[in-house]
């Protein structure tokens, strides 16, 4: 209404001329003449009078007055004044819930005007409106956090018009995201949407988001995706977009149909998907890089420092807590990765899509090359960005992610870290379950160098091997699982994580069996670590069996062995590897015997694990057949030969000679595993994860960055 009237009065305002002249015209018309000329040139020193004016207006609003009455140009001028975020915030903070409700009409008026002006042609007005809205919104939501009965929507736009204005707000923001050329304004709009999405600590209670779950969802989704598509905005704003998408997707996703879930699941714009994965990759790679450089410092001390490291855990220190905070910040990114992997079928390709331009630190050679390239080709500046540093290793999302996992899962004691690690393992589970992802991970031509980080332990040295072999990603994933199994055999046993990590190995092996893929992997590494795990379970049976179901875990482990025993011919990489499998089992036959004994023990007495124990005892039939078949044979051979310490080759030879007299039982459903499903098992987990993401965003993001508005003012004041 207002804007229409004033539009007629100012023919200029309908054109894209947010210039000095424009400001001048409106200033002359304004009823306050106290604005100096220098103000128009963006002179910092003369900011005071304008600030004063804005503050005056705020104050009169909060007194319950309406300064716009009788001045048809009021809003046009108001939106050309730079908002004073702090003043507005403090004014709002002064009020309690009741007072706010009383002032509802005035606040509604401002907000509706803000929403209306978002379609204005003047970039300055849009920026001001976005900033003002965001400030009010944040102030009210902060109030609402303490005063639970506060109705945010009512205070913002009023109950009656909320159906009209909130969707309109989403739409206008979306259209700014997809068509406004100014990246600062896009930035402001994104922050506003983020403020809307994080309005409530509890996502499902965020009534504002309800309004986005209807037809606006499509527009909004596309606008967000568009940001990811554009290579320039992707870098600057991609992280906000990813966070937003995660929040929208998680909004009441168990209660009803969420259009964002559907949209994300069918997203098939390659550029957008690449943008999505690139934002995640950059983020994770940055962290990995930081960690590597930090660790390089700590390890530089050599033997002594590694000794101190192993005595005192490195995560208890200050450094550790700082790292915790850092890892918490990753939750949004990890959740985004999870949602993409879990929902989108097209995203899988991007897991192994090699990304050349990750944000590795610039090196002199790279910059030199850039200069040379730009000098030679006279191409657009965006071109320069493409020139990559030949020294930096290109990487893929999955390779980076596995490296990241190896860092994060080193310590799982604090809850935040536990959750983080669990989310990582869940993502890996989803990936290892996916047919297509598996085919990519097992492709012998798609090799990567994945740097796995190992925590230092008493009984082993950290192999600091600079010349990593490039290998298929399935190998890296198995390496990671082996590393996890080996390094977490602790008193506070992370059972859930173990189940997940061994599940990952199981899924990979099942895929290989099903598709007859012969991955050239050092399988003995896996076998050894699994047997060591069984031994750990056995030795801590007393404490562990009281608290958790160790039989389930042991059964999972034995099943992996059974897969190798019965179907090894379909996927083992060489004939001798089958012999090596037998060798490992025979070598550690005592572990299997003890395990069997324990299983029998528990299955004979009544208890909650009776059934599991029985299953475990049954699953051991083949392993026991093998050990009982070969162990006597080897012993007799040893006595025949008069040897006490036989070499591995000699044992292998005996094994080879005695296969034929051994019969194995075929077991059912070895290659079946329980498919991962998010609901209902993990519902509460994801619920808490989303909570942490929201509180994290609220803590760490400045929703009203004054420098953005400042920049818009500068840009458009100088474009005369």
């Amino acid at each position, binding site marked *: 209404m207002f804007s229409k009237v004033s539009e007629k009065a100012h023919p200029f305002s309908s054109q894209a001329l947010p210039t000095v002249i424009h400001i001048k015209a409106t200033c002359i018309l304004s009823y306050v003449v106290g604005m100096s000329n220098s103000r128009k040139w963006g002179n910092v020193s003369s900011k005071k009078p304008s600030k004063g004016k804005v503050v005056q207006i705020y104050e009169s609003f909060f007194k319950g007055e309406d300064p716009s009455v009788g001045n048809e140009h009021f809003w046009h001028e108001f939106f050309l004044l730079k908002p004073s975020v702090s003043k507005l915030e403090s004014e709002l903070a002064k009020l309690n819930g009741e007072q706010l409700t009383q002032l509802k009409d005035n606040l509604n008026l401002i907000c509706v005007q803000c929403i209306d002006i978002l379609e204005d042609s003047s970039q300055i007005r849009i920026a001001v409106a976005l900033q003002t809205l965001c400030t009010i919104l944040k102030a009210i939501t902060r109030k609402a956090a303490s005063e639970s009965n506060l109705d945010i929507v009512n205070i913002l736009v009023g109950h009656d018009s909320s159906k009209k204005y909130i969707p309109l707000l989403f739409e206008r923001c979306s259209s700014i995201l997809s068509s406004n050329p100014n990246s600062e304004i896009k930035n402001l709009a994104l922050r506003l949407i983020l403020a809307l999405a994080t309005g409530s600590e509890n996502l499902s209670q965020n009534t504002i988001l309800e309004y986005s779950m209807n037809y606006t969802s499509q527009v909004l989704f596309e606008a967000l995706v568009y940001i990811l598509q554009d290579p320039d905005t992707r870098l600057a704003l991609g992280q906000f977009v990813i966070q937003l998408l995660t929040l929208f997707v998680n909004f009441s996703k168990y209660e009803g149909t969420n259009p964002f879930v559907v*949209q994300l699941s*069918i997203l098939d714009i*390659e550029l957008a998907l690449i943008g999505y994965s690139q934002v995640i990759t950059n983020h994770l790679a940055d962290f990995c890089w930081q960690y590597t450089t930090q660790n390089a410092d700590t390890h530089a001390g050599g033997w002594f420092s590694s000794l101190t490291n192993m005595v005192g855990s490195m995560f208890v220190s200050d450094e550790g807590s700082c790292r915790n905070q850092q890892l918490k910040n990753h939750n949004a990114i990890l959740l985004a990765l999870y949602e993409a992997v879990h929902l989108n079928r097209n995203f899988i390709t991007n897991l192994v899509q090699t990304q050349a331009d990750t944000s590795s630190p610039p090196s002199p050679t790279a910059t030199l090359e850039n200069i040379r390239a730009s000098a030679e080709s006279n191409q657009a500046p965006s071109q320069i960005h493409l020139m990559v540093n030949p020294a930096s290793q290109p990487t893929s999302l999955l390779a980076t992610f596995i490296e990241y996992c190896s860092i994060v899962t080193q310590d799982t004691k604090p809850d935040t870290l536990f959750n983080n690690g669990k989310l990582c393992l869940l993502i890996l589970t989803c990936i290892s379950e996916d*047919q297509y992802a598996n085919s990519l991970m097992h492709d012998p*031509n798609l090799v990567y160098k994945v740097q796995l980080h190992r925590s230092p332990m008493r009984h082993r040295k950290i192999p600091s091997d600079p010349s990593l072999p490039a290998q298929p990603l399935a190998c890296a994933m198995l390496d990671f699982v082996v590393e996890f199994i080996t390094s977490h055999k602790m008193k506070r046993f992370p059972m859930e994580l173990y189940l997940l990590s061994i599940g990952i190995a199981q899924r990979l092996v099942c895929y290989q069996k099903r598709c007859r893929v012969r991955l050239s992997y050092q399988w003995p590494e896996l076998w050894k670590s699994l047997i060591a795990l069984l031994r750990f379970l056995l030795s801590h049976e007393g404490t562990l069996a009281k608290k958790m179901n160790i039989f389930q875990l042991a059964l999972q482990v034995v099943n992996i062995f059974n897969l190798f025993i019965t179907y090894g011919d379909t996927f083992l990489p060489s004939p001798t590897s089958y012999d090596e499998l037998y060798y490992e089992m025979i070598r550690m036959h005592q572990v299997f015997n003890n395990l069997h004994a324990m299983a029998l023990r528990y299955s004979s007495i009544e208890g909650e694990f009776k059934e599991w124990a029985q299953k475990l005892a049954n699953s051991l039939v083949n392993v026991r057949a093998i050990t009982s078949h070969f162990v006597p044979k080897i012993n007799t051979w040893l006595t025949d030969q008069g040897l006490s310490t036989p070499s591995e080759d000699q044992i292998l030879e005996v094994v080879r000679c005695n296969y*034929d007299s051994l019969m194995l*039982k075929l077991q059912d459903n070895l290659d079946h595993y329980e498919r991962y499903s998010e609901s209902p098992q993990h519902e509460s987990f994801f619920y808490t994860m989303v909570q942490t993401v929201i509180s994290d965003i609220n803590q760490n993001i400045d929703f009203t960055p004054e420098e953005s508005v400042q920049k818009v003012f500068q840009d458009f004041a100088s474009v005369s």
Partner: protein
Amino acid sequence: MTTSCWLMFQMSSEGNPPIVASCEQGPASDALPNVHGRTCPTRRGPNSHQRNLSLDFRPMKISLPPVAQVTAGTTVAALAATTQHHRHRSLDLDLHRIPEVDVTPSPEQQCSKAKLLPMAKSSKLKEDITSLGSDDSGICGSDSSAETRPKGSEETIATEEVKSEPEEEQPKEVVIKQTVETAAAEPAAKENCVPKKDNLLRFMESSMFQAPLAISYLFTTKEIGVQTYIANKLFTFPEQEVDFYLPQLISMYIHIPELATLIFPYLKQRCIKSAEFSLQVVWLLKSYSSDAHLTSKKKSDGTKLKTLILSDKLRPRSFHDREVVKHPLTAPSPNKKAHQRSQSDASALIVGQASAEAAENSSTCLGDLRSGRAFNTGCTCFNTHRGMVNNLKGRQTSCICSAPRLEGEVQFVDKLLAIGHLLPEVSGGKEAQAIRLRAEIDQINLNLPARVWLPIHSSSIPHHVLHISTAFSAVLNSKDKAPFILYVEVLEVDNIETSPVPQKMLNALRSTKSEENLLTNERPSPSNTSQNLATMLHSNSMGMLYPYDNDDCWTQEDDEISQQYVNKMKTDRDTISQISLESSDSRDMMVAAGDIRRRLSSAFSDPRTLARRRDPEDPSANVLSEPWMDKVQRIRDSSPYGRLANWRLLSVIIKCGDDLRQEMLAAQMLEMLQNTWKDEKLALRLRPYKIVCLSADSGFIEPVLNSVSLHQIKKQHQMSLLEYFHANFGPPNSEEFLEAQQNFVASCAAYCVVCYLLQVKDRHNGNILLDDKGHLIHIDFGFILSTSPRNLGFETSPFKLTQEFVDVMGGEESDMFRYFKLLILQGLLAARKHMDNLLILVEIMRSGSQLPCFKSGAATVQALKNRFHLTLTEEKLERLVDKMVCNSLDSLSTNLYDRYQYITNGIL
């Protein structure tokens, strides 16, 4: 102004059917470039119109006066109706010129063959009018004249084609014209030259005078008249034949300024016609003009032509015409006169807007690999209604918007070369390079499919690039450079420029279930926003609050199910594991551990299922060793584009940092020899492979498929060549072995001749391949004529012939070996017969070029000539062959060189 107009008339004076067909699309696109080989060239000189006559004279023997008169009549009428047309003026001028020309030659014609003149004159006149008229009618754009146009031009073609057949009878008149011309050009030499040249020109008009001779004469003659004539004659040769000599033509263009102006019209016309040709010329200019830069500071002809082509001014004329037509239409403010415009005008307006938009888009994205449209020139012609209608009707759409024609391909090639330059700087060995290569290819793939092509294959298979196979790209073995091989999925198309580019497809491995059900089509593209959004919202708000249903979501199970199905289809062996999967009750099933172990071992005895071992030192061996057809099948199966009918897989080696110009010369020689032997029906067999030089130090190489180097055979199989033959083709007297042996001998003899004639050096086993039929193939012609590696002069023998080769042939006493020597002799004799063709290739390239193989200067060519042993009789030559074979076989230096290679480069 007048000359240029007149020039345009000339160009379109001979229509050709496909073009006429495309003319029907709309009046405005009538004035397409003329794609006719026989179009008369024009030169920006005073005598250009005279040459026109020489061609126009030809029709006079065939008397089709009625037709000519009819067409002339109608078109003149059409002309009269549009007198305001500015082209009218040029017509007048032209008509004025004709008598001028006729006056000059008449005295001489009288003295030689006066009888034919009147007839010639009149029919020529008519012909001219016909062509001019028909062309103009097209430009006028009125419907009635548009109808006469195709008719007229078809008529001209008809007469033209009929006439070109009995060419033997034709030459005389043209000879006259030609003499006239030369006389006009060099009045001083007029009297003396005429009788002498008569013979020469008679010869030139004969059917014997084809591209090879033309190039040869163009180079050797110093007579400007003859040069001019041959330059014109180029238009009449089949394009392919001339294309073979393109390096020579360009070389002459660069280094012989007086020829440059003569060749220019031909190059210009071809460039206008084809973007692909334009780029070929650009790349050749780049490759060869680098030498010229050293001598002169001001821009050479070559550089000038290069900038001219790259500026994209040489493009189908329709574009310029359209601009003239289009502007008056778009200029008036749309809201006022909208109702007055007819429908066709309106559509033209749409195109205009679209192209403006396109230009905007392309300027920001071209070359930006992240944008996903780096090779998209922004041409929107295929998205317009016109393009769609054409597509449905199966007609071709020609680009009429102002989008750059060449820029997309230029960018594509640049990006590929950038990889080549980047790779050697990547530290961390071959594997790191391979990873980097994949990363770069992924980047490029983002921007495909696009209207880009691989220059190495585009002449044989016109295509658009769909996707570059990431997993199969490999860095090849090379000491310090990093050449790499790419396997490229392409779509074969009718015409690179006029066929639509296929849409992007994401990987089809995951079958889609939900997408069809969802409102994907209604989604607005992000670029057109607010209005669209409004309508969208309106339509959508009718629906329920949650328009989607989760049932449509894709689940993991979908994949799983389809995969199970696929697996079941593929199962070939009925193993226990399969049974266990299906049987519900296997409580009592037992299996022997020994069986499992045996199956595992047997899986490895079958080489097909063998897991390929990766060799970190040589990652490319893995990729290369797979048979081509297997690879094609594998890539096709996994590609979303695989089900397109015209899907093809092409491969290319990209090399940066190596001078490929010698390779290109060698490839030309090989092809020439191969053709010679084929014509002579000799059994000798070469495998020339294509080379495209992109600059003086980079280029594309066609990989030789299904072949392994002798080095690899020795390294991987640890057996002698004969043993390898037996292992691969069968026992000594089996049919396969004998055939392979025959192939081996034929190819070995052929390459012996080549190695001798060209003095090919650096013949270590890494440079000699063996294909799957037993053919021997030499690659790497980096050292030919007068250079050898580091000029050590190791390899002194005439060619490489080791005892191993002879063993495969069956020993020195065998019939096969005698046959081998006979083949060499035959090959030499045939080559000697066509020596001139070979020599001219080398000689032209030598002029002005500083290739290392010409380091001995003119002596190089002389030495080459000597090796043909013109003076020897057949018997003497036979003895020479015997001697050479003997020398080569016993050669110490061959062994020495092999050992040297083994020590320095590890090549067995």
